């Protein structure tokens, strides 16, 4: 495989020990958040322990999928050939109802329609047999 072929292919996540459940959940259509049984902290970024208190007493619960756009940027110049055909697309920082913030992209509408504090809902977008990406559409 040459560098050029490689560059045309979109990078897909390779789950690790910390994140396998998240990507499995997305395949089943849910966004799993980690809830700490000791300090009640909720995290999106999956870890083997709570980022706040260090406890390993974590449980996965499906997020409601509701969130709000904290900030965004519409990409006109793609980071490499793989994303060139997608431009313009809106990258979002979404504050989930449960607290955590995550980065994603806007789907199901024009990027120029995205506004600050816009209500959005999760869309589990199947990419292939192993990968489903969490995107957001207008609520």
């Amino acid at each position: 495989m040459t560098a050029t072929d490689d560059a045309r292919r979109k990078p897909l996540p390779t789950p690790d020990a910390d994140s396998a459940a998240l990507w499995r959940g997305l395949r089943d259509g849910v966004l799993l958040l980690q809830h700490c049984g000791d300090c009640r902290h909720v995290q999106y970024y999956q870890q083997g322990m709570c980022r706040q208190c260090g406890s390993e007493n974590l449980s996965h619960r499906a997020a409601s999928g509701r969130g709000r756009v904290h900030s965004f940027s519409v990409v006109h110049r793609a980071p490499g050939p793989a994303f060139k055909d997608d431009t313009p697309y809106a990258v979002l920082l979404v504050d989930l109802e449960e607290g955590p913030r995550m980065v994603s992209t806007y789907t199901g509408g024009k990027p120029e329609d995205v506004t600050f504090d816009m209500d959005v809902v999760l869309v589990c977008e199947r990419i292939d047999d192993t990968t489903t990406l969490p995107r957001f559409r207008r609520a």
Partner: protein
Amino acid sequence: MSDSTLRGKVAVIGIGLSPVGKVPGRSPLWLAADAAKKALADAGLEKSDLDGVLSCHAFASPFHRFSVAFSEYFGIQPTFSNTLQVSGATAATMFNIGAAAIHGGLAKVVLAVASDSLMTGLTPDLALRSLTESRDQQYEMPFGIPVANTFAMTAHRHMKEFGTTAEQLAEVAVVQRRHAARTPGAQQTTPITVDDVLNSGWVTTPYHKLDCSLISDGGAAFILTSAEHARELGIAKPIYILGGGECYTHEHIFLMPSLTTTGAVTSSRMAYEMAGYGPKDMHVAGVYDCFTGTVIMMLEDLGFCPKGEGGRFVADGQMTYGGQIPSNTHGGLLSFAHSGMPGSLFHFHEVIAQLRGQCGERQVRGAELGLVHSLGAGFATNATTILGTENTL
């Protein structure tokens, strides 16, 4: 301020720049060695006088241990060395760590050197790596997020929260281009207007092409030694390291504690405390300027103006000659040159030259105290260094 800190204990005694801008046919190691030769000559030293080397990785170079590969290339065998990696903040950490090593007795004469060939030296493989390497493979990269995008979302939120305008962002680029026009060797010197910036085409909103830094080749080098040794050597005008501070707030953009207030608040506060000076005492600054909005946020977080007023501060002429804090007087990453991680070393070169009074027609009169702030990775990494002349000790 305490005797136990490195305040005033270490001086910069030599500075050197390689050719910058478009420098085809030269490897990062050559650019680094060329800058190092010039810094040694400036200090009146030989390479055999060096016992320490600090550097950072270059994308256009295959060497992971760049500082080690450099030493071999340059024909030296240092007893203190490291290849530092905190993205764009690495430049200031080289000064902070170099000073700490000298103050702590690990080295006597340290060469801080870095270079890259982002413009002419990247193979397709390396170009791809440089585009994507710094974002998370699972949580960020699958969404097509260029590094520019992380900075863009912070600036966008700043506009929303504080009413910062696209024109104010553009003004940063206009001012720095004016500065670059008076800097020999600057990559971009053609004057631009606010309209030119706004009409230069979107990269990632709210950033247009001219809101973004350049892509360049080039390197810079500095010689650090103890204040005591600088006196023994009879150095004409040593520039002292008065304070340093760093702050690392997150790795992922979605875990940045606030999109509009950064770790620069903490890193600069630490540096000011060590130096015994505040933001109002600074005469000249090198403010990391990967994007125009970055400068506006940093002018606030470094304490030059209140939070939210950075846009007005710039529009009022406060970041140029005659204003409160002339910043990036060489043109910065936006107009002088931006060769990746070493980019912020050009700010150090400029601020040290200003404090030495060597800047000719762009000299800030009476400059005795200067600050350089380096940052990177969507504000994940922040490092500040405060420098001063003999009079400020």
